[in-house]
């Protein structure tokens, strides 16, 4: 049994086997590698690097993808004046 390390994935703490790569993590999470971007400790990885980059204790991984979007919703709602209620 390989030694376990703690990493952070998309802001959440997570255990992972020492020596695992970014590619292993994506497979474990059942995330298809096409159309995702991965940032390892703020460094954006090339897709080709996923299987080469090993994870170590305390690493911060961000996995991002495309979602529906035009502009962000107004988070405050406050003072959202309606000019014409039609």
């Amino acid at each position: 049994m390989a030694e376990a390390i703690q990493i952070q994935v998309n802001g959440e703490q997570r255990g992972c086997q020492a020596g695992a790569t970014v590619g292993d993590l994506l497979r474990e999470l059942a995330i298809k590698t096409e159309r995702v971007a991965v940032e390892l400790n703020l460094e954006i990885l090339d897709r080709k690097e996923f299987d080469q980059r090993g994870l170590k204790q305390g690493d911060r991984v961000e996995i991002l993808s495309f979602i529906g979007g035009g502009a962000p919703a107004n988070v405050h709602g406050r003072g959202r004046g309606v000019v014409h209620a039609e």
Partner: protein
Amino acid sequence: MQNDRLIIAGREFSSRLFVGTGKYKDFAETKKAIEASGADVVTVAVRRVNITDRSKENLLDYLDPKKYTILPNTAGCYNVEDAVRYARLARAAGVSDLIKLEVLGDERTLFPDTVGLLEAARILVKEGFIVLPYTNDDPIVAQKLVDIGCPAVMPLAAPIGSGLGIRNPYNLKIIMEMIKVPIVVDAGVGTASDAALAMELGADAVLMNTAIAGAQDPIAMAEAMKYAVQAGRLAYKAGRIPRKLYATASSPIEGML
């Protein structure tokens, strides 16, 4: 209209309506609305993948990147660093160098921070991005964006999601006259006549999200927007009559009794 194609950075588009993909009920509705709009260019945002619920479907399962030009945006970014970071992530996740660059200045108005926008545009153009900047209706900033190397400029009509329509047609008109790259009127459209007006002013395209997604019947509104953009474009090309204060008879006087 057959040969009236929009060209941005060497890419040809048959539709002059660009649409966002946010705020829809579900992906099925998103897909139907986009089909009804006839748009070629669709904007998407870049966000964290939900790692706890992998059953969630992916937007791109519904929008074939071979059929549509996927235009990722930097929505929600309030400074240069974040906008540049999201643009790089979008490129890493995607298939092209296209980026709709937003650097917002304020959460209440979502107005662009044009100082930050110029700085971010400069960085991204140098990195080889095709930067389509969301900007204010300011002709001077628009020109600076072109000078930096943006192949199109996207001035707002009104605040994002406000539905107020074309708030400053004269500034937009000045931008359209001054700027030698395509102008995409982005944000603020409320209904079909707003889109038609933008096109009649001489916009090369219109980008919208909320006006369609927030309508009571988004699919019907998407279709309305398609026709509005086509009608406005045709009217612009046809050349409208001048506005005059007094009447001009349409029927001849000659031959009257």
